[in-house]
């Protein structure tokens, strides 16, 4: 029994953190966010060189063939640095969708492109997975029509993968005829969403899954774990910044971290946040290895991290005083990221409702 990260996973984390500390100082993050594309060629090339594009792609298709836990380790690091680059949808959900629902030929065509960082596939849902806004797309032969909002990982996307009501995903090129895709300037400028309207757009449907709904659920839950891991990293970054600030900011002739009002707030946040790390590890590991526990763990991890994240985001901002409220401090990048994660792929209320059904506490 080993409940913890392997040496390789710790190394992945250290290497990604080192890269982002080096290449993504605040002024870079600010510049990329201000450009509004959610994508930066140079940063992306660096991340691909770090190996994150092929992380979840099987080895035979040119990837590293790693598991959801490895992906969660990466997601946490990306969240820690509020990284303006696609990940959860493009590099975890999309490859999983091809593996779960694509034919061998479709996998051979697309997975190597994902692993190389060339195909960046945003993911959206035209099915009731817990989102407000437009979520409708219907297929007529190979032609897709409808509108889907809140499509994840719009930044730099080349394609979009839309989950239809029957659980099958449909792949559409963003430059195809009959596609109108708007990159929404959203709350979180580090990872913009897409609003896509289809009018008879040419689609490639992935129909190879025996149970398409179950296959979609696995991809959706993996996405939930990624967003939760991203929140874990983002919240840890906010707490670390608040602790550092409390050690240097002087008022009444003392550093403010020596006041119990501030010290106890930070202790509360650490007490809330630290156990979340084990919950994320478990939820991610369950997606890899424990099918009976995977659903509950994903739903509870998403719901719990959304709540803890919100609390950490608020209080870490408050500890910074007026500075926390400014654009200059830049804390808001993490605040907004945590809030966006919360609203995507099911809010805590929605996830807990589903968790009750999954456990048979109430009927669906």
């Amino acid at each position: 029994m080993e409940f913890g990260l392997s040496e390789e996973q710790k190394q992945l984390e250290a290497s990604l953190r080192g890269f982002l500390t080096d290449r993504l100082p605040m002024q870079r993050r600010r510049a990329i966010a201000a450009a509004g594309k959610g994508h930066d060629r140079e940063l992306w090339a660096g991340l691909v060189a770090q190996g994150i594009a092929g992380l979840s792609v099987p080895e035979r298709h040119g990837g590293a063939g790693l598991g959801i836990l490895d992906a969660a380790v990466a997601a946490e690091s990306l969240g820690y640095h509020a990284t303006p680059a696609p990940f959860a949808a493009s590099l975890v959900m999309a490859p999983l969708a091809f593996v779960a629902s694509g034919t061998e030929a479709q996998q051979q065509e697309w997975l190597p492109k994902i692993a190389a960082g060339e195909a960046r596939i945003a993911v959206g849902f035209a099915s009731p997975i817990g989102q407000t806004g437009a979520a409708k797309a219907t297929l007529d032969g190979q032609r897709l029509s409808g509108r889907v909002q809140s499509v994840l990982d719009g930044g730099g996307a080349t394609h979009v993968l839309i989950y239809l009501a029957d659980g099958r995903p449909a792949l559409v090129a963003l430059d195809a005829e009959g596609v109108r895709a708007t990159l929404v300037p959203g709350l979180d400028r580090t990872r913009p969403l897409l609003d896509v309207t289809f009018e008879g757009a040419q689609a490639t449907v992935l129909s190879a899954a025996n149970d398409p709904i179950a296959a979609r659920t696995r991809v959706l839950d993996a996405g939930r774990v990624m967003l939760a891991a991203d929140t874990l990293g983002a919240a840890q970054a906010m707490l670390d910044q608040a602790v550092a600030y409390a050690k240097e900011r002087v008022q009444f002739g003392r550093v403010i971290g020596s006041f119990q009002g501030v010290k106890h707030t930070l202790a509360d946040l650490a007490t809330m946040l630290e156990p979340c790390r084990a919950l994320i590890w478990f939820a991610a590991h369950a997606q890899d290895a424990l099918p009976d526990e995977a659903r509950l763990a994903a739903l509870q991890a998403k719901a719990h991290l959304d709540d803890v994240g919100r609390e950490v985001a608020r209080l870490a901002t408050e500890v910074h005083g007026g500075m926390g409220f400014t654009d200059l401090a830049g804390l808001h990048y993490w605040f907004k990221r945590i809030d966006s994660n919360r609203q995507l792929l099911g809010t805590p209320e929605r996830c807990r409702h589903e968790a009750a059904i999954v456990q048979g506490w109430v009927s669906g």
Partner: protein
Amino acid sequence: MDLTYSEKYRALQGEVRAFIARHGHLSPQPGGGRQKPSPKALDWQRLLLEHGLFARNIPKEYGGFGLPLDVLELAIIAEEIGKADAYPGILNQGISMLVPTLLEVGTKEQCTRWIAPTIRGEVIWCQGYSEPGSGSDLAAARTSAVVEDGQFVINGQKIWTSSAHYSDMMFLLCRTEPDKPKHQGLSYLLVPMTAPGIEVRPLVTMTGRATFNETFFTNVRVPVDQIVMGRGDGWHVANVTLKYERLLLGDANRLSTRLTRIRELMERTSLDGQRIMDIPEYRNRLLRLQGEVMAAKYHGLRLLTEQARAEDSGLERLIVKYHGTLLGYRLSSLAVDVLGAAGLAYDAGDEAAETDEATAWHIDNMYDIGLMIGGGSTNIQKNIIGERGLGLPREPKAVASLTRT
């Protein structure tokens, strides 16, 4: 990450199961702990010790099983015994706090004399730490011990001495060096409760039950060799003991069991004819707590692995007491709310406290507040987490002219 057990551990699992199949009928009921162990509990304890299912890592010469520490083995034993609803063995302050303290800082003679009878449940200990004037500020203890004719003569008062009324011995923190600074003036003595001059008075708590006592010392004499480490080392020894207490108080298995009991309660309790589990507001509270219990449970497994890998856990370990006791309180609060008006009949008598579901939940709910206060209160825990875990500076000392020790 690998949550399966290797061959070696599966073998131990089989061993424990075989033990329970053969001897399980001899187990006393789990729980209790408010009285001296019964003869049945003592016999069961002997069986556990013989089979290495208790005191597994305590040296053979001190009555243990003498195996090197392997936290996974201990987790498996606890898990199997828990699953069988058997008695895990006597858990008291002597076994969980004094014994590890003696092993860490006691002399060979002290270990030889005290550990074996303590783990067999024959010698019961209570803890003499807090005083009316020194609670969170434990190092301000004023109970004094002066040396006269080769004996310590003790005078003073201790409070919150749970189980003092049936204990044989007390580990006592007292001031032996009044001229030294407060942390350096303390000693840690081992005192027989039968010594003349000791008076134990029950202290009734908010639950209506007397689980605590006040203990008074008037010229109580103990030989000078009844000291752990040297004169003035008491603060160091007391902290060794407290480290073991805080881990005891944040147990995640207890939280998981409690969550399951509340789920069952919600499934069989009605509000205006509707099953409480079907009311979204109540259900959502349970679901929120489930997420937190899961986090606490896996955090416990993470700590276990870090311990097995001999990694330093730092902050992760410091939060356990505060996190676990607060979560426990929030769980019992939900149970009390599910019971509602019909759960307000309350009888703090011993029998009702054991058998009446509503009384037991209300007692737990109030006792949980005691757990948040005892063993280093929540506010003290937050100082420790902030200072040792996050590296925040200590509060500046109060101006000297305003303090009095």
